[in-house]
């Protein structure tokens, strides 16, 4: 055993920096979710998107170099009921035939300490782009790291629900969006 110690020490030296330098690039779609919640006549309604693709690169040692982008297939919506799913495709809502996707592209990521980050980026929905700021929590894990965050989307900023649906007394303007992205290093 003793004669192996130098070798073990060498191995440890070689692998330790690699362990620190893990960069999360591979997103696990099945373990990742995007949900939202809004109020309709004062009633909380939950929904989400089943299909979206995420590209990211995140090295905890160099958060300022991190980047993320998400593309959501709006046809995969669960808006709380089949009737609402159908309605959401129409011109007054997502106008999905013209704008089938929602996208987010990060522009700047800043470490806030204790595995919390602030991610700035551009959200594009229905042809309109807005800068948003999203707090993100990073949880290292054995098989995959988890990135969780959320923000309040003002639906009228993007023309989501126009005409008669612009009445925010019926459907609130605030939509709480929450995501959970699982990723592994490669």
């Amino acid at each position: 055993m003793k004669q192996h110690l130098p070798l073990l020490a060498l191995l440890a030296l070689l692998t330790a920096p690699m362990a620190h330098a893990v960069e999360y690039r591979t997103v696990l779609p099945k373990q990742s979710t995007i949900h939202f919640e809004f109020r309709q006549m004062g009633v909380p309604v939950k929904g989400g998107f089943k299909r979206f693709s995420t590209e990211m690169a995140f090295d905890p040692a160099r958060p300022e170099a991190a980047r993320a982008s998400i593309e959501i297939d709006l046809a995969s919506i669960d808006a709380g009921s089949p009737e609402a799913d159908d309605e959401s495709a129409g011109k007054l809502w997502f106008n999905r035939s013209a704008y089938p996707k929602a996208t987010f592209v990060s522009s700047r990521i800043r470490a806030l300490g204790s595995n919390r980050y602030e991610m700035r980026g551009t959200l594009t929905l229905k042809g309109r782009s807005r800068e948003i700021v999203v707090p993100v929590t990073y949880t290292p894990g054995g098989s995959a790291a988890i990135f969780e965050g959320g923000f309040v989307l003002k639906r009228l900023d993007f023309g989501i629900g126009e005409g008669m649906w612009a009445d925010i007394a019926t459907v609130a303007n605030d939509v709480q969006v929450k995501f959970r992205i699982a990723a592994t290093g490669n």
Partner: protein
Amino acid sequence: MRYSTPAIVLHWLVALLIFATFPLGLYMVDLPLSPDKLKLYSYHKWIGVSVFLLVTIRLGWRLTHTPPALPDGIAAWQRRASAVTHGLLYGLMVAIPLSGWLMSSAKGFQIVWFGVLPLPDLLEKNRELGELLAGVHKALNFTLLGLVILHVGAALKHHFIERQPFLQRMGWNRKART
């Protein structure tokens, strides 16, 4: 003989609410989705929950107070039919709002009474169960409609055709003679 004042007030209040929310329910279901539809659904649910609450109070009152005796000269079978009908009316007035509440829960829409008081969801979200409960809610409502027609018809028949002092029993006039 007259019912007690609380029984009379509750009877007419519940009747008024049912006569408002029943046609509202029929009208709203086939509307295309719109903010108005969402509002009408909420009003329907708020009224339904109010009926549920008032009927609970009514049942408590009814179980602790004896209603006035029926006038003489009513056949035994009619007395039995009346007892059965009243029992079913009470049962439906509880079961119908409850089935609506269960349906709303199963469809994933919590009820927030008057937009202020959230009621607990009685079921997990389950689309098939929601559809099933919609059918149950509708069937119970049409049963209620039939029984209400029978109930009103019998009261009118006793009062106007058989000239028995009947409508006074649930009337506002304290001095009504029997």
